[in-house]
């Protein structure tokens, strides 16, 4: 499984679509978007930080393991860091697979593990940079 992991301080731009083979039957894309209401209070956005080197390694380890459970052709994960305003994506995942079943299962498991185990944090502080 082809694994690509990126961290970026800039707004996430969907990478260009490209099918590496004629055997891709399912392309799944997920945007995790910052919502206004988090634990009941209205936010303007969230600040994300990561132990980037460890986060990349940990996510790679999880994806290598998940690839044996849900074999897909490729996964591309982009996590934005720094300030992310409400309505913009903090996380983007694209999965290419022969069939939709593995793709959907891999997507669900990847987000679960990322949220449980990968050293990335969202914080309501610090405040957004002054305009």
């Amino acid at each position: 499984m082809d694994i690509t992991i990126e961290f970026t301080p800039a707004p996430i731009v969907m990478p260009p679509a490209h099918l590496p083979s004629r055997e891709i039957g399912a392309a799944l894309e997920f945007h995790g978007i910052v919502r206004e209401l988090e634990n009941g209070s209205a936010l303007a956005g969230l600040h994300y930080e990561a132990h980037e080197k460890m986060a990349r390694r940990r996510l790679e380890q999880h994806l290598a393991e998940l690839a044996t459970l849900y074999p897909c052709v490729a996964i591309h994960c982009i996590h934005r860091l720094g300030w992310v305003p409400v309505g913009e994506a903090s996380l983007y995942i694209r999965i290419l697979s022969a069939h939709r079943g593995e793709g959907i299962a891999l997507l669900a498991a990847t987000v679960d593990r990322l949220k449980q185990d990968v050293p990335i944090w969202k914080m309501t502080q610090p405040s957004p940079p002054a305009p």
Partner: protein
Amino acid sequence: MTLTILAFAQARDAFGFAERVVACAAEDTPRIVLQRVAPGVSLEHLRVALDCEYVTWDTPIGAAAELAIIPPVSGG
């Protein structure tokens, strides 16, 4: 030997630093090192990593160069 301690997110607030370089011995553990650096700061709810791999609080530092204090993660 020297060890770089990194503290992220809430751990940075609890420990009062983002990064600190300390001297330690190979047989020291993360628990011992942090008790020396910040006595009284609770390790409850925190995880620890040596050179980017999660370990227990009682794993010897060995040849590791970096100790990261990992509060509950919340990415995504």
